[in-house]
Structure formats: C-alpha cells, structure tokens
C-alpha cells in the first residue's frame, strides 16, 4: 500500500553544504497495517513523514501510495492527494483555535475537492466520545478531547494512511494510553493503515511491528 524505494533527502546548511538526512532503500506498509517508527531525535522521522505526506519533496527515489507515485505528482496534485488519502496527527494536536471541534474536522474535508460531509464529521466525533462537544472551541476541551478531535480530523476523509508524529509526546502518562487506544481503534474501525512515530517504549510495545529508523536509514549519524 505504501512503498518507499531508494528515497533520499538532504537539507542545506546555511553555507550551502548539503546535510543528508534520509536515505531509505526500501520501506513498506501494507493496507490496514499499524506500524511504529522509532528513532532518536534528529534521525529524520518527521522528515520521513513529511516526505510521505508530500509536504517535503525528496531529492531522489519514489514514494508510492495506493499505486500512485507521490513524488512524481505536481504540487497541486500532491496537495489534493494528501487531502484525500493521508491523515496527519501532530505532536501538539494543531487544532485551529478559532474553529469548533466539528469545524476542525470539517476543515479536514475542505481541501479534497469533494463534498464536505457534516454527518460523517459528527459521527466520527461521536464515535470518539465527543458527540456532546461538537461546537466547543479547542480551548474549552481537555487535552484528551483535543487529541480525539485531531484524530477525527485526520480520519475525516477515510484516508488510506494515517501519519501520527509523536501524538503522545505532550500528553501525561494517564492520557497516553487513552490516545493510543483511540488511534488504534479508530484506524481499525476505519481500516486505515497507520505509521506512528514515538519515543515511548510503552507505546511501541503494544504494536506488532516496530521499525527503528536507524535500521532503514542509510544516513549514518543523521541529526
């Protein structure tokens, strides 16, 4: 379902010197599979997610999702593809503060070019236990509730792949398990594959497949 082949990415130092960050020979996720990606800080985890999402262009290689070569798409098509097939859950939730819970979810549907499905947004939130908080702004929601809104937003378009970038990093240990449960249950229910980045061994231990980026990234000592 997701296949990275010979993907490399380098940033530029202020003096113009290239700084290699990723060099992945092959990385694959099957449909509906839930994978944890671990690695030390600065090893390129977020860059990898951004490359898969098409937010960052790769220097070389091919990223294929559902048979579409994401790296070969022009930017506008890549944006549309991301909107339709990739959900993104961020470390800091990244809910838009001026929008209510349901509007944040609807926002996730806005850029697909398809009809915004208000009922689906409400159902998603209700399934995540937020049926009574639809019109609340993020500031009026608890941390756990905000994270569930972020999950609902990522799943709004029934994507093929959900990317979760350290979604428990800012959550206390009491809420950590709750967030993981929500993500796993929602992805299972929606039949969405998930690539979850985490530093937490407790989180990683719950998944059948755990990848260490250092094992797949040929860049030695990426920072």
């Amino acid at each position, binding site marked *: 379902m997701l296949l990275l082949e010979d993907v490399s990415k380098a940033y530029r130092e202020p003096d113009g010197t290239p700084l290699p960050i990723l060099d992945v020979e092959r990385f694959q996720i099957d449909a509906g599979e839930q994978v944890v990606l671990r690695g030390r800080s600065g090893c390129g985890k977020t860059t990898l997610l951004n490359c898969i999402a098409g937010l960052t262009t790769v220097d070389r290689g091919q990223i294929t999702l559902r048979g579409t070569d994401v790296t070969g798409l022009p930017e506008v098509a890549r944006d*549309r593809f991301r909107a339709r097939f990739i959900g993104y859950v961020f470390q800091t939730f990244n809910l838009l503060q001026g929008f209510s819970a349901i509007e944040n979810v609807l926002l996730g549907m*806005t850029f697909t070019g398809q009809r915004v499905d208000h009922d689906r947004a409400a159902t998603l939130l209700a399934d995540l236990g937020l049926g009574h908080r639809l019109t609340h702004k993020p500031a009026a929601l608890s941390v756990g509730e905000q994270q569930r809104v972020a999950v609902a937003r990522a799943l709004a378009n029934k994507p093929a792949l959900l990317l979760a970038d350290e979604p428990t990093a800012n959550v206390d240990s009491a809420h950590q398990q709750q967030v993981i449960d929500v993500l796993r249950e929602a992805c299972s229910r929606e039949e969405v594959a998930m690539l979850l980045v985490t530093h937490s061994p407790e989180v990683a231990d719950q998944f059948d497949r755990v990848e260490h980026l250092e094992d797949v990234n040929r860049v030695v000592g990426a920072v």
Partner: protein
Amino acid sequence: MSFWKIAWRNMQQRALASSLTGLSMALGVALMILVIVVYGVVVDQLENDAQGYNLIVGGKGGSLQLVLNTVFHLDKPLYPIPYSYYKRFVDGDLAPYTEVAIPYCLGDSFVGGGQVFRVVATTPDLFERLPYGANEDGTEQNYEFADGRNFKTENFFEAVVGSRVARKCGLKVGDLFEPTHGLGSAGDKHRQFKIVGVLKRTGTANDRALFANMEGFYLLEGHALTPEPVEGQPTPPTIPPPDENGNPRPLPEAQREVTSILVRCKDSFGAQILDTQINKGKDRIAQAVAPRYQVQRLQDSFVKPVQMVLMVLTVLIVIVAGISILVSIYNSMAERAHDIAVMRALGASRNAVMSIVLVESILLSLLGGLAGVLIGHTVLALAAPVVEEHAGVAVSFWDFNWQEALLVPGLVAFASLVGFMPAMTAYRTDVGRALGGGR
C-alpha cells in the same frame, strides 16, 4: 467549509483587531458616502431651484450674484432697475416674447426663530403663473398652500410665508409680521403685513422666504423714489397719502424700482431675442441671465472643486484604511503561519491558503464598506434637520447616489490589492518550519 467561513473564523479569532480595521474602513466609506450624497443632493437642489423661468433680469453687476439673491435668497441684491423696465415685459416692446414676468423687490428681511429670513416683495402671479419645479415625468410642480390663500394685489399689506419660515418662526395664517429694513437684524422695523397663506414645502429656497405684496412694500419707509418736482407746483409727498376712506394709494410707477424680474419666455426663440435685446441692445441698463447656466457655472466654479477636494481627501482616508487592513493581516501572518501550515498539511494548496487570506481582506473591506454605507446614511438622517436648517437642503436616509454602487466592486478590487502581500506570505509559508517539527 467555504473559504468565506474559514476567513470569517480567522477574523473572529482576532476580533478586536478585525473590528478596529473594519471600523477604520467604515469611517472612510461613511465620509465618502456623505460627500457623494450631499454633493448629489446639493446639485439636484441647485438645479431644482432655478426652474419655471428662462431668464432673470436685473441691474448691472455680477450675474452670479443676481442668481444668488433672486433664486437662493443669498448675497446682496444688485442695484435696482426702473419699474418701467419691468413694464416693457408686461405691455411693452418685450411683451410679445414674454409669457409671464414676475418682479422681485428685495432688501428687507424678517428675524424669527433665531434666524434672518429674506422678504421678497412680488406679485401674486409668482404663485399662480410660475411652477417651482418639475416632476420626473416632466410635468410642472405648482405652488400649493398648506393653509390660507395667495395674497391679493388690492390688499397691499398681505403676505404669504414659506413652509420653513412658518415652521421655524411659528407663523400661521392671521399672524402679523414686521419686515426689517435691510438684510440684517439691525434695521428699522417697517409696518406690519398680515399673513394670509402658508405655502406647502417645495424643497426650494423659497421655503426660506416670506413673500409680501409689492404694492405694500413700495409704501414702506425708504422703498420709494423721490418724485420729480414739477415746476411751479409744490413738491408732492414721497408716499402718497391715503384716500378719503383711509385706504393706502398705490405708489406712482415713476417712483418704483424692481430688483429683478423672473421672465418665462413664450419659447426658446423668445428667450434668445430677449437675451440679445437686454444684453446687447441700445438700452443697457439691465442684464439678463439664464439661471440654469449660472447654476452650472456655480457648480463648475465652486461646488465641483470643493467636492473634488473632499472626494480626494476621503479617497485618501479609504486608502489609509485599506493599508491598515494590509498591516493588520500582514502583522498577523507570523502568528497564523502555524494555522496555515496545518491547513497545508490537511491538503490545502498554496493557492487555497492564499485565497483564504485574500477572502479575509475582501470580507473586511466589504463589511467595513457596508457598515460605512450604513453609518454614512445614518449620519445623513441624523444631520438632516441641521443641514436643512442651515443650508436649506433637504436630505434623508434614503438619498442614494448611483456612485455608491461603484463602491462595492471598488472595495473588492482594492481589498484584493492590499490583501495580495499577506496572501503571498501565506502562499510561501514553509510548512515544515511553521509546524515546528524536527527532522
């Protein structure tokens, strides 16, 4: 969710800054509305006031001054012309071209309600044979009386009053009033005139005047010429003594003068003949002016330049308000870079986030503009009594000018322009950096 709603939410999130920016736009537009509408009303008023006759004939002097004091009851009257000149229009050599000629004798005033109003001495024909304006379909609007009747030639000391004078001074049919000699409040009081009629509102300067019977006016102190002495006869009195019944006698024509004459010609050809004969004939003691031409001159030489200056100022104010929108949105771009990056991560294209910022700019301008239209017309309605009081121009909330229709597309175009810079910033947002992600 539409871009409009997203932009609206962004504005709500920065409610105070958005409100202040919108308000500055609203005030600029309100000023522009006031200038446009007031100018339109003033022009209409100027044109309306000079209807019903082709020429104004008066003494030598400034042609604009002649129009100002005859039509608008402003400025000092010109030097008078002999009554015999007026008679030429009635039954003399100019009569064949004249449909009606109305003499005006100016120079007296009336103080009431804290204001000084002009007293116009004339004949009843003014209200019976001349219209004061025209309807949109071209039909003439004739004077009507809200109360009472027109004064009669044979009742020397009768008068009628304009609607505003009556309202302002509390004058009604049966009341007496004393004209003051001269145009200020300091002149000597004349004998009383009886009000026999109150005119309906005409929306012209005549609402601000009192109209006295010319026959009575001539008998007032200082209004009659000294009679020519006849050799061998005693000098007659300036004012003829009353008849045996105590009724006043009319002033001999030789002792009369008129300040100006409103002339309605039989046709346009007649107007040309009269204009030529009066202005270029042998006897050049008077001048004839076309009031419409003079009003046009007044507009071109005074009203339009003033309006242009005011318009330039208000356009500058709107531009400053527009720039404040630019500054407001541009300054917020740093704090909203994160939101833009989130939207980009959710699949929004660069063009989409750029459009959202542009829509916000347009929305701010439109809402500010519409609020400005509302404020402008509300101020107009609130100021209507004061404006009418001091300028004699009737304005209302519903006085719209076609130029206002250009404001909306103009504002949208302008907002697109000022929103372009912050929109480009949104376009160029670096998603990875704005999301603060690691590597």
